């Protein structure tokens, strides 16, 4: 089977490549059978691309099949989510449409569908690399659309005429983007991401170990002045209070939100704080990240983010898209700001059955006469004495997990330690709760800390009667390196790091050049996030304020008007440049001729024809040396050809003009 490469159906091939690339980037929301279907159809399309004149598949059959697929998808749609169903639908429709690409309308339909798919891809991936990829695909779509307007060959694609138009569109688009007012979400939208990576509101100790296998970015924090060192980087996210013996979850939900004021608390101006801006990646929960105790800075997303009584930050809705907010954190404040007396029973709750060994052990060790500090010390000694191991691959402990962990296996991840410790504290009649979030983070060059999923951490808070909530991190007892240096350095078995993710860039940390490259990419991506993706209503307002000095409707409308005017001017320039081309090639030629002649000191007189002029030049030049013989010859030749063209030829072609110009240049 020979493939004749010259007869490749290029528009179809380009469509196919674009489709495959987009599909690969949004594999997650696709159902399994849809993926199989797409793979089969891509095979068919590949065959059709290299054999453009093969038999055409009947439209009716395709339509029936499409209707069937859509029916199946709608059947599954209710529990699959609106956005994901839509994506599946678009995928199926697109690849079915690509089978029969014959009329212009077919190309247009495929282009529009691919455009929607790219938009869906942009909801999932917003990094700069993906953005560049998607932009190329969009440009490709327009180039293919342009090629349907040409006739030289239905199978080729010429980008020469469409690229200038696309480049002209970019500044207009950017200007419109900056100036158009940012509206808040018009209505409640369905969930954005399909996968569930990230911290959840229910934790079984093994979960966080799984999370440690992912090197997805969770958030970035850019600090204005001081940066906390590793031991201070406890990013609080979710607080869990209910323990059923195996899983921690949230029962005590306080709907209220809280505000606090530095001056009202009487904080001295020398009180230490960190000031930073966080850009959080989309996640499945509404919890945001902060160092204790956070205070939202006024100019940021204050409408949508609230402080909760357990010192966490919460958004109104799950994070569908990147969220930017600025925080000031006072790490030295005591966590006793809010009154939680009515939640005490929740913080002492223990499951009715299970984990008998732990219960007995605690009963033996602790009695109620001991002080708070003594109880803590006794319980902590358990971890210090036994030979506990910190590992990413703890053994599977389905029944009585705390017993198995504390007395049998003695191998676990941070969540095992935290869960066991919190349980023990509760058994010792100390109110305690589990806090999950992130610990550490990688420091970048420009005072930015990037936190990844493998930095996920769990720790414990116990309520001291006077001092308030105090943090206790049992991991720090067993694997102090984890807190001091991060996950990689703390694992006894280094190979465990990113074991399931062999291509993770995080592994490159040790190699100097590649590590630096990764840092540069990080920096680029961060700037991209901040400038483009973080451009929200507040940033827009501040930008306009900087340019115009104030913010009100008049200024906004003025900005819009100026934007439109500049777009108009831009368009005018574009087309003025296009029109400026000397229409009459002959006039141009004549001008050039006269200029050349005048260089030799001759000026064409009014009544003189070219022939007379040339004769005059040759005659009076005899004996003089300012025109060489070769130049004279060119001059004569030019005159002959020129007259032959003007008076002889009906249709003058570019080649003739070029020849004349060449002759003139020789003068």
């Amino acid at each position, binding site marked *: 089977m020979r493939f004749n490469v010259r007869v490749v159906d290029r528009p179809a091939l380009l469509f196919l490549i674009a489709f495959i690339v987009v599909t690969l980037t949004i594999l997650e929301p696709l159902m399994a059978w849809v993926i199989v279907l797409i793979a089969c159809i891509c095979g068919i399309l590949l065959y059709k691309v290299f054999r453009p004149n093969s038999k055409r598949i009947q439209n009716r059959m395709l339509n029936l099949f499409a209707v069937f697929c859509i029916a199946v998808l709608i059947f599954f749609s209710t529990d699959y989510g609106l956005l994901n169903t839509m994506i599946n639908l678009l995928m199926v429709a697109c690849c079915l449409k690509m089978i029969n690409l014959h009329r212009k309308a077919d190309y247009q339909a495929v282009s529009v569908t691919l455009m929607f798919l790219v938009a869906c891809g942009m909801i999932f991936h917003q990094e700069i690399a993906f953005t560049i990829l998607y932009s190329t695909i969009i440009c490709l779509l327009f180039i293919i659309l342009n090629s349907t307007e040409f006739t030289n060959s239905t199978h080729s694609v010429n980008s020469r005429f469409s690229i200038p138009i696309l480049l002209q569109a970019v500044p207009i*688009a*950017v200007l419109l983007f900056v100036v158009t007012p940012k509206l808040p979400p018009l209505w409640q939208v369905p969930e954005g991401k399909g996968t569930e990576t990230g911290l959840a509101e229910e934790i079984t100790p093994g979960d966080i170990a799984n999370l440690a296998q992912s090197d997805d970015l969770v958030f970035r924090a850019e600090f204005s002045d001081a940066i906390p060192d590793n031991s201070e980087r406890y990013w609080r996210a979710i607080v869990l209070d209910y323990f059923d013996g195996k899983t921690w979850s949230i029962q005590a939900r306080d709907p209220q939100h809280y505000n606090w004021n530095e001056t009202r608390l009487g904080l001295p101006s020398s009180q230490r704080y960190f000031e930073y801006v966080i850009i959080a990646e989309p996640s499945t929960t509404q919890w945001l990240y902060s160092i204790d105790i956070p205070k939202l800075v006024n100019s940021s997303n204050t409408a949508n983010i609230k402080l909760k009584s357990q010192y966490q930050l919460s958004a109104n809705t799950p994070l569908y898209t990147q969220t930017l907010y600025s925080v000031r954190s006072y790490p030295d404040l005591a966590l006793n700001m809010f009154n939680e007396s009515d939640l005490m029973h929740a913080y002492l709750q223990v499951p009715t059955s299970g984990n008998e060994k732990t219960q007995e052990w605690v009963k033996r060790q602790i009695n109620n006469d001991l002080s708070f500090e003594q109880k803590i010390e006794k319980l902590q000694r358990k971890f210090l004495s036994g030979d506990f191991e910190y590992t990413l691959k703890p053994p599977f402990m389905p029944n009585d997990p705390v017993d198995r962990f504390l007395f049998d296996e003695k191998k676990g991840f941070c969540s095992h330690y935290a869960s066991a410790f919190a349980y023990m504290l509760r058994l010792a009649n100390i109110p305690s709760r589990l806090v999950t979030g992130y610990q550490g983070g990688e420091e970048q060059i420009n005072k930015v800390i990037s936190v990844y999923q493998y930095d996920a951490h769990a720790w414990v808070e116990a309520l001291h009667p006077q001092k308030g909530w105090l943090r206790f991190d049992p991991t720090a007892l067993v694997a102090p390196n984890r807190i001091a240096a991060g996950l990689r350095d703390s694992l006894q078995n280094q190979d465990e790091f990113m074991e399931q993710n062999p291509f993770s860039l995080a592994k490159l940390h040790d190699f100097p050049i590649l590590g630096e490259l990764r840092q540069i990419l990080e920096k680029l991506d961060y700037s991209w996030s901040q400038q483009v993706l973080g451009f929200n209503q507040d940033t827009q307002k501040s930008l306009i304020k900087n340019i115009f000095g104030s913010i009100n409707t008049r200024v906004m409308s003025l900005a819009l008007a100026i934007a439109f005017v500049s777009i108009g001017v831009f*368009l005018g320039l574009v087309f003025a440049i296009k029109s400026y081309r000397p229409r009459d090639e002959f006039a141009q030629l004549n001008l050039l001729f006269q200029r050349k002649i005048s260089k030799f000191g001759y000026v064409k007189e009014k009544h003189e024809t070219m022939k007379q002029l040339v004769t005059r030049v040759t005659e009076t030049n005899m004996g003089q040396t300012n025109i060489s013989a070769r130049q004279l010859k060119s001059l004569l030749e030019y005159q002959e050809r020129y007259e032959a063209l003007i008076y002889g030829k009906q249709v003058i072609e570019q080649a003739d003009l070029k020849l004349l110009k060449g002759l003139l240049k020789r003068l």
Partner: protein
Amino acid sequence: MLSSISEWFNTHRNRWLDRRIPASHEYRFDLNNTFILPTSFGWVLIFVVIFLFILGTNYQNNLVLLLSFFALSVVLLSLFHSFYFFTRITIKFIKNEELFANQPAFLNIKVINDSDIIESRLYYQHQYSQHLTNRDRRGRSKKSIVRMLALKNNEQEHQLLLGALPRGKHLLPRITFFSSYPFGLFKTWSHLAVSDKLMIFPEPIQNKTLHFTASSQKDESGENRLLENSSSEELQGIREYKDEDPIHHVSWKHVAKGQGMLSKDFAAHQSSTIVLNLSAFSDYSLEESLGMLCYSVMQLSKNQQNFGLNLGTQQILPSSGESHRKQCLTALALFSDLHSKVNDSHIGEDL
């Protein structure tokens, strides 16, 4: 009811167009005679822009917003580029070849493209008017594609396909030229009117009755009621004057030159002059007889024969040559038999 409304609409439209785009030989597309509107795909893309804007706003996703603004700016730019491209084109109506009824009619045009966009498509289309109703009674227009090969400052001749037309002198309906360069988002079009009426000669129908050779017609006089013999002589040379030569045969030019009396030598014309007669075809329908006459005219002219034409109401004296042929053909094309109104009404139903 609807048809009368559409008729009223059409007349008004035509009147308005006549005012705005008067008939001419040469058209340069510009602001006055060009129209531009989004195509259906253009509307689709505008809808896509709105949808993406809503999507981006709801998800607070700046990238999707950027995409929607990018698509909007492409649409906006496409408007200007479409118009710019279309107004670089000049169309000249040039001389036509001879056209016959019931054969595909062509209109010769010259297209001049001023831009450097080569190999792009320019479409044309026209409406069949009542008089030209030929294949399609409902007046639906047929669409054809003109491939435009255009180089920088170059001209190209094309032929516009008009379909088969009946004989006669026709005022052509306006021809619509349109294009949807660059992305198919906007359609720019113009309705151009051809200023000259188009002459369609009757379709030549081959017939044996006039199939003759250069030899004398006397043998066939029995069959031919069509032919009238009349004498005609052809100049063969110059010879010496003989007494019995008629005076009007003398070549006075030579006498004036002082070369003596010489007379022109005439050879007896081998074939006789023919006069084609319409009444001879009373067996056939009007169109068929005109067609056969047309064929005869063409053949006779090809053989450089003298012939005349007798159409009852109109007569053309025998002659020969190009202009005579044209005159005859024109007469045939324009012939309308007032006596046979019955025949006329068949024109519409025949085909």
